[in-house]
């Protein structure tokens, strides 16, 4: 059974909030100095440098505290390497497959075939964009039921040939829309979860950004689930949690802390198996290093898991999820 988490470090949370206010203040000062410098043709470079240095120190200090809200911002960072980039970088000869054979091809879900260091694998990954145009094309990484059914089709293909499934997870949520409901969003997610618990091939999952509730879980049930240092995994977006609890979506920061959604907390709850380190300051600062770290973590697992007898693999997967929970009898 799962162990409870220690109390939140509220003093550190308060310090981080204070630092954030200071950083915002410094940024305002810098902007004001710039405007004045342009207007009065004064040399403000020296003052700006000093302020920027102070801001940098504060950011470093905040990074050390690791607040939940900071993790949310990092996981949602527009320049963070996207799931499709991980897939295309990790796999050789990647061949994309399209469509769920039932309704349409969902651009929010990427599926395909490729080689991971000589091992054939089938990959699934939601697609987020780096700008508005890209995001509109892939529905901001929020799949419709057909996206999940497309992923299931790919996983069944992997099962047919005995190839491992690699799932890279970064999605804010399953798309909340009327058409998605009509086509059975809940059923699609439920089906994927149930099928993934008994898929007769190894399933490796890496949560690289947002692990957004059921929409993420529908492709995140695995033998080994890894999570990047600044990724988040949550049962409800912090904004939604704040809206329900306090009728104020503006208190999302507070909700993020309460939900215990950081990689460190999620690992402590036993929900993920390992945390993958990111380049200093976040994966967006050095995507190649972030991808390399994922590759390193996958290599031994891609070798070991296929050697396990299939019945043992499935039995272990069931037992792993069966033991997650915290209750008194």
């Amino acid at each position, binding site marked *: 059974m*799962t*162990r*409870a*988490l*220690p*109390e*939140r470090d509220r003093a550190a949370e308060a310090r981080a909030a204070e630092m954030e206010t200071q950083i915002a203040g410094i940024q305002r000062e810098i902007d004001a100095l710039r405007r004045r410098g342009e207007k009065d043709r004064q040399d403000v470079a020296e003052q700006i440098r000093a302020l920027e240095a102070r801001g940098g120190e504060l950011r470093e200090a905040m990074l050390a505290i690791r607040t939940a809200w900071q993790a949310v911002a990092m996981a949602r960072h527009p320049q963070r390497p996207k799931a499709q980039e991980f897939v295309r970088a990790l796999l050789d000869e990647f061949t994309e497959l399209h469509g769920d054979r039932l309704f349409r091809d969902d651009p929010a879900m990427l599926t395909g075939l490729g080689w991971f260091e000589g091992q054939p694998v089938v990959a699934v990954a939601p697609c987020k964009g780096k700008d508005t145009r890209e995001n509109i094309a892939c529905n901001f990484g929020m799949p419709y039921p057909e996206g999940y059914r497309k992923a299931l089709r790919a996983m069944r293909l992997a099962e047919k040939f005995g190839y491992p499934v690699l799932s890279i997870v970064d999605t804010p949520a*399953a*798309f*909340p*829309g*009327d058409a*998605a*409901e*009509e*086509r*059975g*969003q*809940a*059923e699609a*997610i*439920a*089906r994927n*979860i*149930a*099928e993934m*618990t*008994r898929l007769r091939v190894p399933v490796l999952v890496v949560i690289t950004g947002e692990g957004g*509730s*059921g929409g993420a*879980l*529908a492709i995140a*049930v695995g033998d080994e689930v890894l999570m990047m240092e600044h990724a988040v*995994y*949550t*049962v*409800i977006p912090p904004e*939604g*949690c704040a809206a*329900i*609890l306090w009728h104020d979506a503006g208190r999302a920061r507070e909700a993020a802390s*309460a*939900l*215990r*959604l950081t990689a460190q907390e*999620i690992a402590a*709850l036993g*929900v993920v198996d390992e945390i993958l380190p990111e380049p200093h300051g976040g994966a967006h600062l050095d995507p190649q290093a972030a991808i390399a770290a994922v590759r390193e973590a996958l290599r031994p697992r891609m070798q070991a898991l296929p050697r396990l007898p299939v019945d043992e693999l499935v039995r272990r997967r*069931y037992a792993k*999820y*069966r033991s*997650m*929970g*915290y*209750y*008194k*009898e």
Partner: protein
Amino acid sequence: MLNWLRRPKHGRISRRDMPAGLWVKCSRCGAAVYHKDLERNLKVCPKCGWHHRLGAEERLLITLDEHSFEEMDAEMASGDPLRFDGYREKLSEARANTGNADAAIVGVGSIEGRRAAVGALDFAFMGGSMGSVVGEKIARVAERALADRLPLVIFSASGGARMQEGALSLMQLVKTSAAVGRLHEAHLPYLSVMCDPTTGGVTASFAFLGDVIIAEPGALIGFAGRRVIEQTIRRKLPDSFQTAEFCLEHGLIDMVVPRPELRGVLARLLRFFGAPQVAAAPAAPAREAPQAPEAPGDPEVGCP
């Protein structure tokens, strides 16, 4: 063990301003209804047909044969794994209001003489939300069905995963889906009944995995919340959106069954799928419900 005489302490029917509790006001149509009529009608408003919510105990009381229920894990209770502000208080309040330890009652009972593993969620307990206890109980009752080769019947009424248990609640979707998934391999039937409301994580796990999915008339059934959807698509949704009837029309469920007929329909399905028969003659449920039509004969005894 469930106390058959214990009166549930909750329900949506207001008795305020009604003399001596003889008359109650239907929260749907506003009609004043004689209390005993409403009870006799299984809390379906005789005026407008609205199916008022039932607590988990009431649900089992009107569905199962009298004295047939053997409850499992009645004392299992939630902890506070995240140390989430206010969670302990909310739990105590819900326990005091419902008299139950958490939002699910599970066990083994019979319906018109057919034995089944049975579970019911209680919306009155923190919105029927699924945290570790609900997930564990649903998994255990599914495993009991597997061990005793019984069919599984689950009545859902839930707002979804319990946020106060964070990602652990989310993992209950996996635990419950995996457990009911095992019945599939064992060729045991699983009947899922969706009551008002069944939404969020419960729909995205065991509730939508039934071999046969039944809903009560008018029940709200859906994954995402109406407000979230309206904000996303920037459009108002019709009242019929995410109702049981909407789900039936879109092919998401098998049937919509009025409450007075539900026991009979379940019994007929249990017979069809070969649920084992109890030895003694079945007793009628504690409260009267119409009997199912005569069966054309039993296929066989014992699940295949």
